[in-house]
């Protein structure tokens, strides 16, 4: 793992950068590999309606899912259906926060019913966000299956949730945070392990 770079990545004040887990090249290679893993699950015989679909979780999961979709299209010539999911309304941490978190859009432009889905998020931690996302998906229909893809699995699970596709597994402690930064929102690509002063929302 690289040492923190002198050109500081865009972190909130109060974060102490401990290590750079992935630089832009690492991220690209990992996404390539994850895209190929998803392709292995594609069933060439399947009707288009049952074909795998990607659902990106707000907010950074959306950009990761989009990049995966583009890679899959490049590798296989197949353009998977793509949706955006916000699980904020299904969170379980109500009343432990002073402000309700911002609700981002949910747009799933295909029928969830009987479809095989891959849910994409940047960091898997306690598993509560994934649980909320599953509840949100179930309220939209009855998928044939849901697989979960996390760019980073940082351990410390509090619910029986496990990823089906993982970019990298990194053991962490509760006082740490894994920050995924993407060009689309943060100006650059990379994954950092930081000492926590603020929570990443």
């Amino acid at each position: 793992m690289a040492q923190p770079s002198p050109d500081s990545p865009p972190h909130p004040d109060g974060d102490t950068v401990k290590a750079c887990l992935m630089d832009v090249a690492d991220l690209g290679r990992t996404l390539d590999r994850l895209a190929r893993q998803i392709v292995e699950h594609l069933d060439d015989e399947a009707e288009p309606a049952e074909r795998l679909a990607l659902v990106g979780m707000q907010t950074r999961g959306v950009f990761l899912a989009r990049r995966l979709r583009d890679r899959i299209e490049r590798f296989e010539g197949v353009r998977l259906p793509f949706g955006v999911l916000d699980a904020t309304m299904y969170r379980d941490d109500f009343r432990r926060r002073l402000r309700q978190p911002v609700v981002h859009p949910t747009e799933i432009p295909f029928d969830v019913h009987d479809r095989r889905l891959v849910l994409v998020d940047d960091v898997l931690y306690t598993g509560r966000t994934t649980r909320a996302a599953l509840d949100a998906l179930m309220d939209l229909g009855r998928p044939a299956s849901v697989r979960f893809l996390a760019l980073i699995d940082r351990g410390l699970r509090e619910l029986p949730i496990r990823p089906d596709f993982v970019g990298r597994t990194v053991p962490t402690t509760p006082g740490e945070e894994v920050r995924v930064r993407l060009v689309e929102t943060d100006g650059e690509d990379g994954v950092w392990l930081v000492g926590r002063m603020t929570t990443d929302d």
Partner: protein
Amino acid sequence: MSEEALDVRGSELVALRHRHLLGLATYGADEIRLILRTAREFRDVLERPIRRVPSLRGVTVVNLFFESSTRTRLSFELAEKRLSADVVNFSTSGSSVSKGETLKDTARNIEAMKIDLVVIRHQSPGAAHFLTRCIDSVVINAGDGAHEHPTQALLDLLTLADLDLPRFPAEQLHGGDFGGLNVSIIGDIAHSRVARSNIHGLQALGANVTLCGPRTMMPQEVERMGVRVTDRLDEALDGCDVAMALRIQLERQQGRGSQANLFPSLREYHERYGIKEAHLARYPDLRIMHPGPVNRGVELASEVVDADRSVILDQVTNGVAVRMACLYLLSGGIAGGDAE
């Protein structure tokens, strides 16, 4: 898929600065836009097979309605239930109030039952504000006398923001920027809390507001509100993008004393201030709004109510979504949040 779904880099507001929703007079444009953005997401929930989310699970809301109201109470109740809140309804008929209990004591008794959120409608202006002084719960004003009715104005603003008007780029209105938008509010302005809240909201978002009605129905201090005033409907509709017709409160016209007979007859009101099919023809881009319930043939001719350019039913749909958004955004204040 819209780019809006992907925009996380904006400097948009993420939380309201108020603990209660008592009126729009103190609400900033950014807060209003946050409510509208959030309302759109809740409106999507209403389109789904399962029209419910668990966001307010475990939260208890009381609808404290001292004035009779079917539609507003129903709209709030639906919004609360769609958020999975526990709902208690309190209306004045056959209640302790008719036995002489004061508002303060009613509220205190309710608070003792651990109610998190109170939605109050009362005939006295300032009742909602008064309530925040007696109890700790979060308070939403559902109409206090002729003072404010903020959720009605917010749903009107959402309806406006979603309009497809040829004069404006869609993103401008959609984003809650009403610069250049001409809105005329027509009717009994003096007695209308809907008008007051809308004036605050429209001005906050940059719209040009015209008030139109008989002089007997204009508030005394109206010039100070920074609006254009006319008692001629043609003047109000010329160049107008959207006309908001207010309900003539028929019960007031039959009232006693100074409130009685503010105009000679309903027919004369319709003659001079009612929006008719001829107006729709003369102003081909004019949109029509009304908070409801409509008195057909008084504020609006019957054909106008049912015309394509009337967005009255959209207002109703938006009402539940907007109230869900307000309940959601304000519920963060339940855990003893910042004082207003």
